[in-house]
């Protein structure tokens, strides 16, 4: 809830500051002179400042709630309690009662610390001590060293003077004490608002781990090999899918027999998510490369076939007529009219297919693989290496984005006439 509030606050504050600044700068272009902008989609252009602030905010939030060393300390959300705290408990046995002090050392998880030595003190209840790691909690058997223990009928009846019964909780310095069902105090250090590194490591921790994985690899393969395997599978699967799918789509667009024969198959297979095919492909082809490439081939095949088919159907009949009237043969029409005319559609299909293939390969590697981006994050999650999981997700996103950019660039270079017909 608090992170959301902070996020909304930054959003609103940035909006007011930026719009004020921009208005102050007096930027006047054509769009700024439009009086009707609400509902005019062309007047809505992404605000560059908003984009930059948005990305910075994500990292800022990430840093705030992980206590990142990249941020000055005053920006951090309150962290977990660290240090030595004490509380007293009151034990009652045989009608007599006695107080004793418990000293607790709360230490970071990675630094193992022993419970400090304490003076036992007077009375039948002796002073205790314990060491508890941050984000953990610990039962403190306070009666262990007492002259009258639980077996002698001694019970803890109050903590810091506040009476307590099993199941109840009392706040003390640096945390809370809850009495267990059997009457043993359970000390839980204050967690603060930061995320435990196990759930969300700080940005610099992810970066450090990335460097480490780049230099020394993960599970017998280097990072480049993991990502390379995923990319290799996508490219091979996609290329085979396109090599089969495009001619199939052309045949479906040009022949009524092919259209009739393959329409039911293509229309049925298209809505089947490739992920649903993973179990069957594993049964048939195992978890090796063949299975993954078959899966990606199937993911790309239908998309490419449909793109090629609609590319052919999208040819304006007047263009075909014109070509015939200019003396072109069927083969020449195919080569000079139908194929170039369908290229924009095929490129759109290829972009979609590459996106689907990339998603599918990661999912398939999550299920079973010896190397690959998906396998890397799945294995890391089993060993609670959250930093590797986050690194993997970021890299998968970057590569997916890169593939899309590359396809768009290729599209601009190779089919500049797209949408100009």
């Amino acid at each position, binding site marked *: 809830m608090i992170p959301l509030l902070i996020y909304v606050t930054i959003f609103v504050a940035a909006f007011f500051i930026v719009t004020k600044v921009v208005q102050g700068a007096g930027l006047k272009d054509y769009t700024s002179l439009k009086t009707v902008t609400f509902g005019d989609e062309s007047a809505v252009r992404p605000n560059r400042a908003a984009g930059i602030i948005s990305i910075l905010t994500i990292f800022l939030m990430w840093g705030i709630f992980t206590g990142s060393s990249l941020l000055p300390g005053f920006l951090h959300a309150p962290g977990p309690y660290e240090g030595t705290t004490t509380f007293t408990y009151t034990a009652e046995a045989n009608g007599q009662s006695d107080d004793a002090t418990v000293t607790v050392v709360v230490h970071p998880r990675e630094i193992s610390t022993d419970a400090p030595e304490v003076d036992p003190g007077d009375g039948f209840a002796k002073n205790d001590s314990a060491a508890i790691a941050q984000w953990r909690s610990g039962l403190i058997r306070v009666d262990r060293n007492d002259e009258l223990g639980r077996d002698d009928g001694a019970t803890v009846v109050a903590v810091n003077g506040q009476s307590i019964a099993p199941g109840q909780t009392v706040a003390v310095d640096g945390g809370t004490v809850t009495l267990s069902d059997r009457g043993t105090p359970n000390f839980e250090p204050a967690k603060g608002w930061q995320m435990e590194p196990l759930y969300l490591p700080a940005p610099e921790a992810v970066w450090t781990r990335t460097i480490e994985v780049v230099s020394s690899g993960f599970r017998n393969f280097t990072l480049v090999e993991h990502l390379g395997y995923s990319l290799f599978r996508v490219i091979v699967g996609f290329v085979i899918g396109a090599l089969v799918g495009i001619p199939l789509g052309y045949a479906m667009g040009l022949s009524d027999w092919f259209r009739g024969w393959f329409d039911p198959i293509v229309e049925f297979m298209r809505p089947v998510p490739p992920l649903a095919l993973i179990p069957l492909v594993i049964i048939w082809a195992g978890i090796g490369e063949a299975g993954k490439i078959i899966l990606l081939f199937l993911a790309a095949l239908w998309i490419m076939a449909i793109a090629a088919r609609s590319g052919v159907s999208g040819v304006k009949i*007047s263009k075909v*007529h*014109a070509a015939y009237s200019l003396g072109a043969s069927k083969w020449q029409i195919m080569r000079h009219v139908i194929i170039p005319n369908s290229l924009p559609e095929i490129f759109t299909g290829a972009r979609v297919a590459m996106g689907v293939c990339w998603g599918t390969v990661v999912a398939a590697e999550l299920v079973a693989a010896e190397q690959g981006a998906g396998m890397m994050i799945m294995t890391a999650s089993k060993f609670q290496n959250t930093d590797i999981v986050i690194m993997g997700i970021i890299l998968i996103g970057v590569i997916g984005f890169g593939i899309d950019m590359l396809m768009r660039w290729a599209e601009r270079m190779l089919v500049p006439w797209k949408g100009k017909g």
Partner: protein
Amino acid sequence: MTGLSINSLSMRFDLPNGSHVQALQDVSLDLKAGELLSVLGPSGCGKTTLLNIVAGFLAPTSGELILNGHKVTGPDAERGMVFQQGALFEWMSVRENVGFGPSMKGTPKAEKDETVDHLLDVVGLQDFKEKAVYELSGGMQQRVALARCLANDPDVILMDEPLGALDALTREKMQSLVLKLWKETGKTIILITHSVEEALLLGERLIVMAPRPGRIHTEYRLPFADLGVNADLREVKKHPDFGPKREEILNMIWDMEEEIMGGKENAA
């Protein structure tokens, strides 16, 4: 014998609901080589069907088509076509578009380049040779389409409202260009148009078609095309016969339209 003869052409489309449309009934027409025929008529009179049959894209249900002594059975380079718009190949440059026909025939490059250069000069697009066609204005695109058609040196040029999508000024310039090309090349041209004025200005012969069934209603022989070859088209429009002819044909087409609407009202 040279020229195009259309012998009692009929075209009937059977509709899925069992009824049918008689798009053309018993249309006969003889065109000598080098004649320019313009075709007018209300929508649904079968003008475009007629043109598609002459081009060879459609086979008539009965009747036949003889061009220069042989029967027409399908599309061929001897009959070039200029469409209203959108029939250029946008993946090719202006030069490649114009050179498409010769390329398909395998004409040697030097000869093809010469033809293309000459035609681009004729239509005034020499400076736009390497441009992509989608970078050109509508009028320029139609000039490319004309040049592309001429590059193939067809015997007959079929024009399906080639100037219909152009603005009035461009249209007038293009009309002069069509007349000039017609005179210079001596091609047989069939021009379909919706504009009575254009049909009068360009058509050496003019037929008005009537709908349901599609047939030739009236035929004219006109002097304006010959006048227009050497004079400003605006001067031609001042010819004493021009106004009355235009009124006559407009009224004729108007009456046909009224009849169609009336028929519909009665049916309803």
